């Protein structure tokens, strides 16, 4: 239980933007480019906004996108994988198609899907539409390996005697799926989800760094690093604070998934 504390912290940080968003956006022209001090622990940016607050909010938004896309990706992957495993006509061609889909790198696929869904680059009408676009494009790019693994896990179970016994004993399909299949794939699923959290966070950060992210109004960590770099020669804290928060998040999430026994 102790090792999941970082995960709970990450979940709490997801909710943080909903409370802190307003005062992290306060513009004060008298306090621009301040170095870290007692009043502003992370200093201020070019518009006098508190950088630490902005970075924490950015981290929260990044994690929110990360978790939402994780949920959608796994829902899609598990659904397609289980349908393929129960569909008797699913043959090598289907698996081959999944392999083909899987061999294009995620970041590029997300960028392509983002253009396709968004009908262009940037300039979205609302925050929700940008958020949804990002989540859907990440999910569309990352479902393939999950579907393949779920299919393999379920296919391994299909010949087992206790499952045949459950069918003969009159167990309903829902009962069998709930009691046997989900319980059997849950260990793999749990490990895979937890391992993918830092990966998804990094994909989101690189996306927002390259300009496919949420934009300046709801800046995530990647965008803040990119923006901070423009004045890094004189004010290095502008990129160092968001970079440090990204590092801490990745460290925390990775420590929580490391197996101490190995």
């Amino acid at each position, binding site marked *: 239980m102790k090792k999941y504390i970082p995960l709970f912290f990450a979940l709490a940080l997801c909710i943080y933007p909903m409370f802190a968003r307003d005062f992290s956006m306060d513009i004060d022209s008298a306090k621009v480019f301040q170095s870290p001090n007692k009043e502003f622990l992370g200093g201020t940016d070019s518009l006098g906004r508190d950088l630490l607050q902005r970075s924490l909010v950015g981290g929260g938004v990044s994690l929110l996108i990360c978790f939402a896309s994780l949920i959608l990706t796994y829902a899609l992957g598990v659904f397609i994988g289980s349908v393929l495993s129960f569909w008797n006509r699913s043959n090598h061609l289907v698996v081959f198609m999944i392999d*083909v889909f899987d061999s294009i790198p995620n970041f590029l696929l997300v960028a392509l899907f983002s253009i396709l869904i968004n009908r262009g680059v940037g300039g979205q009408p609302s925050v929700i539409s940008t958020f949804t676009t990002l989540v859907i494009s990440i999910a569309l790019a990352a479902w393939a390996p999950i579907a393949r693994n779920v299919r393999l896990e379920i296919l391994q179970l299909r010949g087992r005697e206790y499952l045949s016994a459950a069918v003969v004993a009159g167990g309903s399909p829902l009962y069998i799926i709930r009691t046997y299949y989900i319980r059997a794939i849950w260990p793999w699923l749990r490990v895979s989800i937890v391992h993918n959290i830092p990966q998804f966070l990094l994909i989101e950060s690189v996306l927002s760094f390259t300009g496919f992210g949420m934009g300046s109004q709801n800046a995530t960590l990647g965008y803040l690093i990119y923006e901070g770099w423009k004045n890094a020669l004189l004010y290095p804290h502008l990129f160092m604070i968001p970079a440090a928060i990204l590092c801490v998040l990745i460290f925390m999430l990775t420590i929580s998934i490391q197996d101490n026994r190995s």
Partner: protein
Amino acid sequence: MIKAIFDLTFKFILNVHLLLVLIFSIFYFVPGSYIDDEHIVEQVNQVVPVQKYFFFSLKEFLVDFYTLDFGVTLHNKNLKVTELIWSKTVFSFQFLGLAVGILLMASIVISFLVVRSRDRSRYLDFLRVINQIPQLVMIPLIIYLFSYLFNLVPLKFDPYSTPCHVFVIATLLIKPLGQLIQLTVEKWHKESAEMYVQFARAKGLSRNRVLVVHMFKNIANSFLGYFLAIVLQLLTGNFILESLYSVPGFGLGFMDSVSQRDLPVVIGYLFLFSSLYLALHFAVQTIYLYVNPRLRDFA
């Protein structure tokens, strides 16, 4: 062997076509993503453009795809996207090609030295910590330290300065090299528990010979897999480095095209990166077949 290579080639062709379908759908459904140069010539000649039917335009698009013609850029109608991307790619490849070569050689040599060393576990612990830092943080930090703080290299990329070239390659390599060494050393070290290693040592063979001739052949398969994944990181690092250090290659070109919303160029770059990755994937899979004979039957 031939059947396996045929399978791989088929997979590669399918991959490229999947990409083409994706890009075709972007061209067709996203307004402004494809600007036809012939269409502009027509407009210049004040001829009213005729509405094209789907299948006619489909045929034209397919011809454009197979000739790799992505139209003209949004901001400069005289500049073809393919020419622009090609010029930037040639520039970037000078660094990337060298970096990939160094990565391959250096990772094997350094991993060998680490595996042989008695402080192996200490080095591994250090690498495990360092490798947790994402490239998005590491690259700006290195540029800030060496360029802004210690003034060892110019503030921005200078094509006529040799230290600048060395700095760019070193910054690109630092993270992928660390990761590749960590993974290879871990694999190499695990292999030493196998029976055949102990048998070879018992026969009186030297430690170096067992490490290189006997063990490396068995870990080469995993090494190639790691190498492929890590070369992809090199591409991502290239985006970040070029945009932060103003290196006029395809990374900076891609970032500029995204910020200017020049959609034809963005799509051209994405096609280039994806096909580059696929070609690399294909090459590594083919080397796999050579390294691991068992795969020849199952590929």
